[in-house]
């Protein structure tokens, strides 16, 4: 059974030693307030920062996998949409592959509806367009696990839903997906949610029960209003208020 298993990954003061097990086929969301540790956890899992502990994908230790192998095991999409060099979109996607593969690139160009944009320099694309290019790069090598930091930010609604469909299809095909999510209204579309705050995984549940829990409202400092939408908790509800 394909899965990503992390044991005691930690990042100095940003992330307490954390362990988790993410099986293939599920859409796992990471939610939490700003600065709570979503990005730190993803970076620790992707081994971007030296993070202690170990991360196994399909039973293979990431730290001992060479570049070509690692590319097949995981892919990390950072939250930043910047590319330092004026490279054509198509060539950015190509960097996601170990060897040149025009057929795969064309497939991704079509999937992300890049069309004419594919030959334009990424620095001349809009942030949302660049998000599509960079996500295509992250998916290119068909890795076992996708660690995506806020892939749905900067997208218009059409692309939010298209991305969610793609993630669902990836999960169905046996990939592992861990996705940091900002927009809580989309949480119900995931199978499982990790609530991360104060550098720790606080809760790990199905989205519906997570959102219904007292702790969830406390951490986000919001509550469900009478109209069914979220609203700010009144100061009287807050324990820290005088």
């Amino acid at each position, binding site marked *: 059974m394909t899965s990503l298993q992390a044991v005691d990954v930690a990042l100095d003061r940003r992330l307490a030693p954390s362990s988790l097990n993410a099986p293939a086929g599920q859409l796992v969301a990471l939610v939490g307030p700003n600065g709570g540790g979503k990005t730190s956890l993803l*970076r620790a899992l*992707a*081994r*971007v*920062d030296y993070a202690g502990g170990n991360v196994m994908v399909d039973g293979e230790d*990431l730290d001992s*996998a*060479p*570049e070509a192998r*690692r*590319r097949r095991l*995981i*892919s*990390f*999409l*950072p939250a*930043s949409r*910047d*590319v*330092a*060099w*004026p*490279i*054509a979109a198509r*060539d*950015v996607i190509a*960097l996601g592959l170990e060897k040149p593969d025009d057929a795969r690139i064309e497939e991704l160009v079509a999937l992300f509806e890049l069309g004419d944009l594919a030959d334009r*320099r990424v*620095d001349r694309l809009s942030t949302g367009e660049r998000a599509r290019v960079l996500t295509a*790069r992250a998916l290119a090598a068909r890795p076992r696990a996708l*660690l995506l930091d806020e892939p749905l930010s900067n997208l218009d609604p059409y692309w939010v839903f298209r991305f969610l469909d793609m993630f669902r299809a990836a999960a169905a095909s046996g990939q592992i997906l861990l996705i940091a999510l900002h927009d809580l209204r989309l949480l119900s579309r995931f199978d499982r949610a990790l609530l991360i705050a104060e550098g720790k995984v606080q809760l790990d549940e199905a989205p519906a029960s997570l959102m219904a829990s007292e702790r969830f409202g406390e951490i986000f400092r919001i509550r469900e209003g009478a109209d069914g939408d979220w609203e700010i908790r009144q100061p009287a509800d807050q324990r820290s208020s005088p």
Partner: protein
Amino acid sequence: MRIFIALIVLLCIAAHLLLPLAPLREAHAIDPELANLLLVQLRLPRTLLVIGYGAALGVSGAALQAIFANPLASPDISGASSGAALGAVVGGYWLGITQPLALAACGAAGALGTLALLIGLAGRRADTATLLLAGLAISLAAGAATSLALALAPSPFAFYDAFDWLMGSFVDRSLAQAAAALIPAGIATALLLRRARALDLVGLGEDVAASLGLRPRQLSIEVVALSAVAVGACVSVAGAIGFVGLVAPLFGRRLSRGYPGSAMLPAAAIGAILLSLADLVVRAVPLDRPIPVGVITALFGTPLFIWMVITMRRRLAA
């Protein structure tokens, strides 16, 4: 395109070796052996140095630009060339080193010192303004220190003597000197070229590169050290030559689809072409004393540099 560029490089090598033709022909008329001697003892070291130095500037410029993620980082702008000159001056005039390879080591040490200082001052991912200001400060300081070292040098002729090579000169270099510059520079550039793929991937951002198991920090240290060796060794023999290391990578990236690491090889070819053309201009100028090569590269490089700054400003404003 590759074959075309390789042909131009070969053409430049041939032109640099044979032009001007008249002295060769005259020597040949007197004694074919003399023409041979002229070609091998005088022209060949100069041609090898010009081609090798130009290529080293192109490769190290492209590599430095890749790790700083900035098209203005280069051996001259970063202060590495000035540091190498300082190292070579201190080694040659204060420590009394005459052995070319030891002098090359002094040049490399100077370049390494200035690059380390630049990273300490500006940081590895500095914005353009910080990088330029820190590089300028270091260049000026190294330049002043070089002048001071020459002014106070034990030999009263140091200043005049050094002027000959500080701004770049390939006149009368021996094969031993060419070897002292080119063997370290050749090894360093070969090692840099092996990192092309890694430097391309760093173009996606250090985080993505790190997630693929590359170590961006280590890679930066490697690039800085190898660039210092390549540039330092060449500067110690032929002086500090500006702009080639800045401009060659710019054209190199046009030939590598914009990839910063793969740009190193074409940048090497373009650096070699530019420097051999500049030295041909030096030889063609009908003056009784040679003008420094650095003057020629600056003459063509300055307008290009200004154009780069203007386009960057426009991009930042947009």
